[in-house]
């Protein structure tokens, strides 16, 4: 896998150790970050940004997005969670950069979730003799993974170099791991989907069709074996960044994403399969929706300060829509999913839409949390202050860095 000089920069995950201790609970974000001595002191990020007219190169990325109403709501959220957070920044400009990703990436997350969940449903349907559910789920998975891959490639700065992803395997890069997961998953999903499409065609292609029919089950099962990875790695893709709202969600986001995947693919199954076959799809969808809603709630508690962006502006609207649609879809599934084909289809659509809103909402939260440097600076400043205090308490002589700048009058 690595030859020549180019790959020398990689690191091996096996050489690293990460003591998985102290799964931190909810972070305390209500500390008052006072003005730092010797600097211009506080002022909320909004005030700083206003003072500097949103200077820097970040204009157009979320500034003013959400309009007045959004800003008011955001102020309210700020007041609730961090009454007096003041901090210093460089003219209110972002400290970290948001990934230059556009709508193609949340689409890729959404479609990846549908594909992963659908392959599982297809395999189950195959093994338990539910041909209609199997057909819908296999074709759905194939379509979704195709769109997902196309979106991923389209979002590259140099799409023609997509295959460079396959030069290396790096466990430290979720995008690398994900590319290999998709590479392993894709062929099985596509063969299983193609077999279903071939059966729908009025003509048969002789031995080719026979071969396809024979290969469909092993291919579908192979895809299903990797499908959970397809649905979950995308969470790590987002959380393994310096983007505050994404990184802070790293404990729960994989569970939110697989829940969302189950809800969406279950919804698709309910949409495509008749009611008497769609029982497992309904259960899958309801379980997924419940998990997504519950864990998402927990995530907002554990994220700390950056959870704010999930309540404001565009991400806030998307997350609210996601919760409403997912809850409505799950409720509809429980109430009418078993009785009415139309009711099942509508519930399925609501679940799909809810999952899409989750992906777009979580995605949009990333750039929003980058745009306001507060989310980068305040938690780090708190951490630094805590560490300095702990070091001082532990009797270590405070380093020069720890002493505050002299204040003279």
């Amino acid at each position, binding site marked *: 896998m690595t030859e020549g000089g180019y*790959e020398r*920069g990689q*690191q091996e*995950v096996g*050489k690293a*150790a*990460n003591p*998985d201790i102290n*799964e931190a609970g909810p972070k305390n974000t209500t500390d008052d970050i006072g003005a730092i001595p*010797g*600097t*211009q002191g506080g002022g909320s990020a909004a005030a700083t940004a206003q003072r*500097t007219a949103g*200077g*820097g190169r970040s204009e157009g990325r979320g500034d003013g997005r959400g309009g007045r109403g959004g800003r008011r709501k955001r102020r309210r959220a700020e007041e609730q969670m961090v009454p007096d957070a003041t901090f*210093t920044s*460089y*003219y209110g400009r*972002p*400290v970290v*950069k*948001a*990934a*230059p990703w556009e709508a193609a990436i949340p689409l890729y997350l959404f479609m990846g979730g549908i594909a992963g969940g659908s392959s*599982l449903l297809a395999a*189950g*349907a195959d093994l*338990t003799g539910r041909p209609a559910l199997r057909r819908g789920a296999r074709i759905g998975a194939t379509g979704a993974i195709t769109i997902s891959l196309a979106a991923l490639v389209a979002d*590259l*700065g*140099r*799409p023609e*170099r*997509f295959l*460079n*992803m396959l*030069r*290396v395997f790096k*466990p*430290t890069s979720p*995008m690398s*791991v994900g590319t290999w997961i998709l590479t392993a998953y894709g062929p099985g999903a596509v063969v299983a989907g193609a077999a279903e499409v071939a059966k729908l065609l009025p003509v048969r292609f002789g031995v080719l069709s026979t071969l396809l029919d024979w290969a469909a089950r092993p291919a579908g099962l192979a895809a299903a074996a990797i499908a*959970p*990875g397809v*649905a979950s790695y995308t969470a*790590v893709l987002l959380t393994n960044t*310096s983007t505050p709202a994404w990184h802070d969600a790293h*404990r*729960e986001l*994989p569970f939110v994403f*697989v829940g969302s995947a189950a809800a969406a693919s279950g919804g698709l199954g309910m949409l495509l399969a008749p009611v008497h076959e769609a029982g*497992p799809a309904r259960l899958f969808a309801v379980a997924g929706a419940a998990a997504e809603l519950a864990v998402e709630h927990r995530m907002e508690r554990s994220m700390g300060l950056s959870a704010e962006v999930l309540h404001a502006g565009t991400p806030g609207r998307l997350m609210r829509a996601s919760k409403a649609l997912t809850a409505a879809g799950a409720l509809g599934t429980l109430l009418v999913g078993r009785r009415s084909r139309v009711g099942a289809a509508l519930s399925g659509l609501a679940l799909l839409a809810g999952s899409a809103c989750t992906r777009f909402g979580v995605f949009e939260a990333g750039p929003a949390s980058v745009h306001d440097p507060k989310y980068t*600076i305040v938690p780090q*400043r708190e*951490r630094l202050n805590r560490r300095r205090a*702990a*070091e001082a308490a532990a009797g270590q002589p405070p380093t*020069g860095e720890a002493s505050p700048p*002299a204040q*003279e009058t």
Partner: protein
Amino acid sequence: MTHGDPAHQGGGHARVDAGDGHLGLDQAFTSAGPAGPAAHAGWEAPPSRKGFFTDTSICIGCKACEVACKEWNGVPQDGIYELLGSSYDNTGALGANTWRHVEFIEQRTPMAGLDTGITIGVPETAVGPDVLVSEDILGSMARSVHDKPLVDLGMPAFDLPSASPDAGERTEFRWLMASNVCKHCTNAGCLDVCPTGALFRTEFGTVVVQDDICNGCGYCVAGCPFGVIDRRIGQKAPLVGHSDKPVTKNAGVAQKCTLCYDRLLDDLTPACAKACPTQSIQFGDVDELRERAEKRVADLQAAGVMGAQLYAEDPEGGVGGAGAFFLLLDEPEVYGFPPDPIVTTADLPRMWKHAGLAAAGLLAAAAAAFLGGRR
């Protein structure tokens, strides 16, 4: 995939836990073996690690480094005559087209808080010779300052304090200037997350993008804890045929400081350090620079500049010590630096574990759905 044993690695580096699970180096993916990051990355008998010590206390904000970097590396312009209207800094931030960035911080802070030992052009802040650094690179400069009449080097100020009778009292402004650059981290987030291997560790321990490998996925942009690297926007060369539009070099590709890899290979000093007229940017072997930096910060603190602190240099810090570190006169966030950066991959084993659990949960849910749906 297997991961390292999630238990503490030995080593006496354990830091005081700040209460959120971040413990510093031994929790991170460490690129720094005892032999340094280049050896860790597989280079055999690499040369000594190269880097920068940027001493912002003597930066005069001339932007020579910014210009020299653009010139040497052929970095395209960001825009024409953009004025940000916030300070003398009209560049704004590091990015694909800004590999060195000179920052100007204007503070309403009494000048007395800023005795840097630098007296050029600001007679009132002159400090006694006993305070001035006599041995290091500043020595000769400081001495010459005292031998010669003071000259105005064009320090940016609204009113040069007491420069003219009309200037009146000294204002309460102080200026901080800092030349920002890629930190060439020991544990580099950009390098860790790059899925193509376009980013690599050079034999000098630096982190460089290979323009012809990068496919512009943009992951490194979000991976960097300092907001350094970015994807270049511009007109791409057509895949086939010829285009009449002017093409931007490396458009769509991630770009950042290379620590002048080409110059290092020829034993030359990087362009920015070469151009710096005050030796604010000092280039050299990281070990030696670190010693110099520690001495300098101690001297400044002894001289009463209590805000003086080293930034990103600590090998036990969140990025394992940077190849390019800084002496700051105020807290890092004042300069737009993250106060306590930790490489994102420090949490990655835990992330993979949670993703694995979530995947297992999904599989179990699917199985249960079919078993339960049997009824």
